[in-house]
């Protein structure tokens, strides 16, 4: 390690120590394990992950319900997802994630609606199973085109011991449609991550194990799926178009703009292509074991990664697909060149600090590199060790890594490291903008997008430029202050 690197590493370590200083001792010890500096030797960024948040801090994490309803199940458009329990969880997760879909809302699609059993005190005392059964009847009555129902359990359901599985079984037999009970109570696990896992397991147990794929479905050697794309701002669409262009057939999208039929037919795929590894690796692994379907992780953020991923995907198929992949990469090269020529001069050398969930703390790093930008800090809301192992591939030595960063730590890190852009979520957005820091929301793409694929990269570049180079940031200090 060079002397300069060693010095900067020491400075970063001093900053970490200084930030940790504010905690009571017990919490300081716990938090210290989650903050680190990327070194060449560390295989997992040298931070601990996937353990409980310390109480009494502003963690940015959500809960298992958010993982299941908000991410995995909620975007399946032709099913109705019941927020089972009190009114709040469904209310707050109503329409917030921009999982685009095509369908007639309220008639054959329900993605931007909020269905709840709206628990009252008596439901807590006497149990809510009867009410749930009635809710299902009423759904089936009012929405005859619904293809299936999921029950997303909120905290009290598990605590009062309701048997939602029994209700699901009975009612499913009665109405002749799949009903999936999901035990994603918010107190389970340490973050939304367990909700993803639980939701994946219910797909295994209540979709794959109960329903046969359609017998009339004609397989082709080019059948793939998009797994772990939630179609935020249309991401899955700008990914799908590329896979189709190289000659593959996308037989299912999980779960943005997805349907129950697509879930059911997924085991007929030749290969599962997984974008958000964190939220969907469980089901991909299961399909590998049970149906012998290989899976591959890909990254469609930024031209370097898109090209690499397209080639890796094509390598799983024949010469024709490989030639197509090269042709598609070549076809989009002028767009890539144009975007980079336009935006790189405005963004070159700018420093970014990231803090997001799922895959983005690593996947978007190279998209920034493509624009000549540098990622100086990154971290995950709900990663596990294997995510951090995957992160070292993307991050440079000396990068500050913060797992489950608290609002306090993040603010201090940004204050001291002074990046040119902070890219995180809605709860963080205004904190940093008040500080005069350009900011982009990387959960919702700040209501823009898509960011995936070549079409998405152009938007990504435009958005980063508009965040960093907007004149408003020159106005934050009054001339007399």
């Amino acid at each position, binding site marked *: 390690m060079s002397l300069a690197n060693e010095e900067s590493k020491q400075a970063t370590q001093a900053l970490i120590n200084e930030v940790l200083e504010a905690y009571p001792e017990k919490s300081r010890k716990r938090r210290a394990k989650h903050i680190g500096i990327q070194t060449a030797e560390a295989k997992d960024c040298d931070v601990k992950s996937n353990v409980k948040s310390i109480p009494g801090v502003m963690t940015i994490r959500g*809960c298992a319900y958010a993982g299941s309803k908000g991410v995995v199940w909620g975007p399946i458009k032709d099913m109705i997802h019941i927020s089972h329990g009190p009114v709040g969880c469904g209310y*707050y997760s109503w329409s*917030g994630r921009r999982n685009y879909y095509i369908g007639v809302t309220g008639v054959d699609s329900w993605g931007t609606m909020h269905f709840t*059993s709206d628990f009252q005190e008596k439901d807590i005392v006497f149990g809510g199973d009867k009410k749930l059964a009635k809710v299902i009847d009423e759904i089936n009555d*009012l929405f005859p*085109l619904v293809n299936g129902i999921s029950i997303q359990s909120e905290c009290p359901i598990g605590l009062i011991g309701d048997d939602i599985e029994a209700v699901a079984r009975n009612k499913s037999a009665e109405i002749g449609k799949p009903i999936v009970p999901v035990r994603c109570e918010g107190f389970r696990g340490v973050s939304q991550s367990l909700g993803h896992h639980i939701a994946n397991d219910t797909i295994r147990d209540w979709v794959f194990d109960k329903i046969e794929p359609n017998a009339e479905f004609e397989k082709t050697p080019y059948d793939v799926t998009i797994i772990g794309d939630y179609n935020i701002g249309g991401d899955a669409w700008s990914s799908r178009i590329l896979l189709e262009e190289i000659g593959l057939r996308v037989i299912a999208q999980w779960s943005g703009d997805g349907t129950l039929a697509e879930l059911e037919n997924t085991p007929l795929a030749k290969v599962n292509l997984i974008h958000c590894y964190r939220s969907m690796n469980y089901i991909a692994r299961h399909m590998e074991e049970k149906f012998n379907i290989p899976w591959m992780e890909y990254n469609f953020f930024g031209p370097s990664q898109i090209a690499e991923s397209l080639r890796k995907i094509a390598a799983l198929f024949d010469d024709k697909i490989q030639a197509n992949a090269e042709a598609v990469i070549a076809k989009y090269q002028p767009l890539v060149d144009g975007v980079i020529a336009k935006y790189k001069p405005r963004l070159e050398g700018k420093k970014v600090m990231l803090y997001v969930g799922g895959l983005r703390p690593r996947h978007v790093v190279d998209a920034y590199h493509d624009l000549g930008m540098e990622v100086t800090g990154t971290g995950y809301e709900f990663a596990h060790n294997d995510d951090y192992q995957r992160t070292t591939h993307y991050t440079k030595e000396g990068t500050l890594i913060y797992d489950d960063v608290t609002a306090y730590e993040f603010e201090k890190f940004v204050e001291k490291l002074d990046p040119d852009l902070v890219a995180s979520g809605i709860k963080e957005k205004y904190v940093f903008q008040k*500080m005069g820091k350009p900011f982009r929301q990387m959960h919702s793409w700040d209501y823009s997008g898509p960011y995936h694929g070549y079409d998405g990269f152009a938007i990504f570049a435009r958005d980063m430029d508009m965040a960093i180079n907007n004149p408003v940031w020159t106005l934050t200090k009054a001339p007399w202050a």
Partner: protein
Amino acid sequence: MPQNPEKVIDHMELFRQPEYKDVFGRKQAEFEYGHPKEEVSRVAEWTKSEEYKAKNFSREALTINPTKACQPLGAVFAAQGFEGTMPFVHGSQGCVAYYRSHLTRHFKEPNSAVSSSMTEDAAVFGGLNNMIDGLANTYSLYQPKMIAVLTTCMAEVIGDDLQGFIVNAKNKDSIPQDFPAPHAHTPAFVGSHVTGYDNMMKGVLNYFWDAEGSPAREETDSINVIGGFDGYAVGNNRELKRIFGLFGIDATILSDVSDVFDTPTDGQFRLYDGGTTLEQTKAAKNAKATISMQEYCTPQTLSYIKDKDQAVAKFNYPMGVGATDEFLLKLVELTGKPVPAELTLERGRLVDAIADSHTHIHGKRFAVYGDPDFCLGMSKFLMEMGAEPVHILSTSGSKKWDKQVQKLLDSSPFGKSGASYGGKDLWHLRSLLFTDPVDYIIGNSYGKYLERDTKIPLIRLTYPIFDRHHHHRYPTWGYQGGLNVLVRILDKILDDYDQKTNIAGETDYSFDLIR
């Protein structure tokens, strides 16, 4: 290739391009196994029918698109209006992320609250340890002046005893013995965010007013005002303060979020800014009276204050001329001070504005939905302008509220075609809008789905407004607020006229320059 570096298009245009339409068509035809188009149209039409409405209204268990959130949201909002206060939500942590996001999306401001992050072990053994460690962390990290403790449904179901836990935590030195830590039980399965507001407000007052050794009440000339859960609190509280200034009334807004949710962008992030000071909160016990601007946000609080021998008065989100008159007359009655000339002028100006514009509003039919007080205040103002509130709906509305709405409707000939729908939701309203259409809908951002389905224009005038910016900076209370509300309604009506008449050569004989 639809994308071009010279003119980058995003989702709004990108996915309208033929390349993507092909992608969508193939997906739908080959993999979705959807229902035939005719069937979808047939069902879509059926959802607009009287038959469907009857089915929809016979629902007993299912709630669809309600106009209510859960208690803790209201409690967090109430707590945040006090100086240097960090809401500490005892229970599982996802909830806090939701409250913070929700309030942030409306106000476009940072929103601070912490969680005790209870998980499975706490579900079994209780959350005492989370409270002990959590309060210590909050205290050292965020250096609040007060920590307001409240619960989620998880903590309520397992029966955690907040008061006992806080005492325990203090005994373990998590926070100093004399550190203010009021609390409120806010189970999500009782009431709504409106109830949570009430519970937390009462919790805070109770903490200071009944503290050991706190001096006995000595009445002063001061007046307390409680705004209630109000998405326009930034504009409204400032307007109230201006009115009190004109009157020369010494008033305290209890839970004043106006500066908390409106900090400047000047290079500095303020974790705490503004809010009712703790000294003011203590002193509020001695006030001559407390005025609640929203009755349904304060029943327990007002009853508590009344028990302290303080006069109380309540309003239902007062908007418009008559409602503001009543509010000002109440101030006169309570303080003995006359209405300032400036406000009389403003009153005349609002009447002038209504007179100038009433032709566009008179006889128009409206659906109004939202929190119980908002619905009452809005309907009253509509009738005052000659409009007809037809469907008045609040998922938090009780039987008592239904009666109150009916009484209001009965008070004016413009209320003749109106009816109230307490406990009903926006899917009920959708049926009503098809079977008994109105000209305009007034409500929050969630109404945009109703607007899309029914083609009835939506006027956004309550919480939450996610898809329009900065409305909360403008008051809706007082004569100035009335003027803002009038202009927002008129803008929509006049835009609507233009949209209905703008086809060249076909409808544009009514596309008038002067309206």
